[in-house]
């Protein structure tokens, strides 16, 4: 998942919400439950202290020992559950304690000046006989209905460990539950984002297919929200291709409209041997080169921005091999083609034809008899393209020196004026290769002549090579 993506934004927002909200909710729930448990514990202590006070009533003169409080742990030594009835001031009788306290006694919150709450209870958290934490509740009152009788302290103590353990157990269960819920939510959010954005990935994949030539337009089954986007994109692709075709037709028509009158001018001038006619011939030749230059550029400009064009290389190479052998058959040129099956060039067929055609034509003009066109696909050095299409055209002609090779490719440069041609062929190749961000180099061939090497972006290939 890329940082700058819709999926990341949706996922990150949901994850942030989950991470912030779940702990807050957990704290609130924990706090409510903790208060509920502590209030329940306090309520239980209050009930017991009421019972102890009622059971101590006895004859009304001296307190009786409570016997039926309803909690067996008051009878277990050091259990943490204790009661105590203690006379205050001029109180009559001895201090009574539960069996669980044995010989110990409990401090009185009254004597510790603890403040009485709205229900008449005083509370104190202390340490018990075995140093265990205890919570004490105390009522101060008289026996029976005697308003002038001595005051007594009625105390019940319970172990603070009991609600503490319950609270910490609950906290642990709550934390684990919320963590699992959080992880589940994150997973669900991730799946939701993937599922929800899947149609957009289909569109992206479809555009990739169109660009690489596997499909001519987007054809996915898409949800209603982005179906219009697909329709608009398809219309854009169709309009783009229509514009290119129209531009190309216009360029072809322009070529025809200009070149036929130029032919008439050249022939008319060549029929006369005057200074004027020679100047006309010379200027017409310049015009011809300019027309070719700008028509080539117009074709290239028309192509810029086209998408989805892929060309099978082998049929193009075979057609040009056949054509060039026929054109140069008087010379007996033998063109050998080495080309794997299913090699595809990521670009216009016309451009590939111009590149291979001009290279083969140049080699055929200069060779003794042998020309070789070798096409291969190699792993690209650049990460932007996965493969490069490599064209090697060799001939057994005289070849070129290093300095001559550096001049070749400049528009209109001809090293031998006796050979027919305009000097445009290799410069057209150079221009086309540049427009595809490829490379064009000249070397010495193992056949003895020149080797022209062109490297271009390719889309896919299969390794089985066949000799034509």
């Amino acid at each position, binding site marked *: 998942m890329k940082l700058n993506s819709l999926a990341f934004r949706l996922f990150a927002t949901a994850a942030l919400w989950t991470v912030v909200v779940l702990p807050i909710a957990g704290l609130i729930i924990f706090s409510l439950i903790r208060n509920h448990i502590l209030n329940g514990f306090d309520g239980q202590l209050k009930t017991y202290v009421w019972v102890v006070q009622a059971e101590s009533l006895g004859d009304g003169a001296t307190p009786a020992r409570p016997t039926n409080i309803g909690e067996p742990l008051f009878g277990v030594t050091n259990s943490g559950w204790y009661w105590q009835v203690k006379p205050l001031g001029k109180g009559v009788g001895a201090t009574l304690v539960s069996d669980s306290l044995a010989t110990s006694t409990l401090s009185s919150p009254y004597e510790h000046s603890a403040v009485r709450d709205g229900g008449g209870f005083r509370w104190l958290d202390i340490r018990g006989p075995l140093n265990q934490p205890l919570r004490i509740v105390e009522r101060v009152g008289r026996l029976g209905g005697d308003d002038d009788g001595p005051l007594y302290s009625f105390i019940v103590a319970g172990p603070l460990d009991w609600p503490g353990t319950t609270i910490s157990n609950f906290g642990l269960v709550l934390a684990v539950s919320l963590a699992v819920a959080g992880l589940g939510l994150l997973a669900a959010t991730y799946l939701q984002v993937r599922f929800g954005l899947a149609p957009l990935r289909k569109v992206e994949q479809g555009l990739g297919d169109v660009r690489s030539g596997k499909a001519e337009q987007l054809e996915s089954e898409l949800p209603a929200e982005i179906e219009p986007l697909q329709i608009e994109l398809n219309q854009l692709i169709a309009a783009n291709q229509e514009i290119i075709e129209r531009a190309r037709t216009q360029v072809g028509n322009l*070529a025809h409209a200009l070149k036929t009158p130029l*032919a008439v001018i050249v022939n008319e001038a060549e029929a006369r041997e005057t200074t004027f006619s020679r100047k006309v011939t010379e200027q017409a030749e310049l015009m011809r080169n300019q027309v070719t230059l700008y028509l080539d550029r117009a074709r290239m400009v028309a192509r810029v921005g086209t998408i989805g064009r892929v060309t099978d290389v082998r049929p193009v190479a075979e057609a040009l091999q056949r*054509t060039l052998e026929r054109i140069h058959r008087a010379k007996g040129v033998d063109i050998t083609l080495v080309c794997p099956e299913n090699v595809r060039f990521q670009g216009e067929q016309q451009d590939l034809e111009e590149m291979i055609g001009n290279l083969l034509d140049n080699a055929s003009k200069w060779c003794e008899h042998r020309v070789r066109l070798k096409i291969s696909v190699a792993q690209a050095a650049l990460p932007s393209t996965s493969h490069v299409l490599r064209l090697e055209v060799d001939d057994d002609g005289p070849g070129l020196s290093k300095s001559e090779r550096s001049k070749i490719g400049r528009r209109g440069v001809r090293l031998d004026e006796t050979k027919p041609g305009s000097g445009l062929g290799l410069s057209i190749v150079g221009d086309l290769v540049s427009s595809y961000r490829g490379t064009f180099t000249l070397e010495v061939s193992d056949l003895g002549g020149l080797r022209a090497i062109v490297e271009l972006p390719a889309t896919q290939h299969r390794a089985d090579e066949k000799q034509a």
Partner: protein
Amino acid sequence: MRVLVVEDDTDLNRQLVSALSDAGYAVDTAFDGEEGYHLGDTEPYDIVVLDIGLPKMDGISVLEEWRRADRNMPVIMLTARDRWSDKVAGMDAGADDYVAKPFHMEELLARMRAHVRRAAGHAKSEIECGPVRLDTKSARVTCDGRIIKLTSHEYRLLAYLMHHNGRIVSRTELVEHLYDQDFDRDSNTIEVFVGRLRKKIPPELIKTIRGLGYRLGAEADEA
């Protein structure tokens, strides 16, 4: 040699007719595809110069129809559309060569000479028959090294016989290949020119084969 020029541009058509006539060809001309197809389908041309962009019927279709009908004369395409796809289409349709516009007339003439020669089975630009030698590049005829001066009609007749030496050539064939379609075809004219030629080269070189026609040089092997 008889040539058909199919070109819709009137100026270029006129220039081609003029240059080819000057070069010794008998020239027929057509200005659209249909007319061109009809002429090429019915007349025996030694070579055709065919424009691709023609009205009524394009050059590629004309050529395909001719080849389908086994019309095998050499055809040179003239095209302003000089993309390789156009050249491949033309050559696949059965063209023997292409010349891109604008072109130099000399280049077209050189290619035509080469194709006519090759169609008659001669690899070199010079054709020999006994002491007579024809240089197709310069249109010069020599006999034992001496330059023979020939009129235009005499040159055409000798050139045709030299291209087809060793083979019997009928008077009708000669008329068909030496004159354009507008010429008044009287085979007696041929006899007059043969008579003149026999005075300029060794007379026994052109044999009259009774009832069949003429043969230049010895009989060619059937093989």
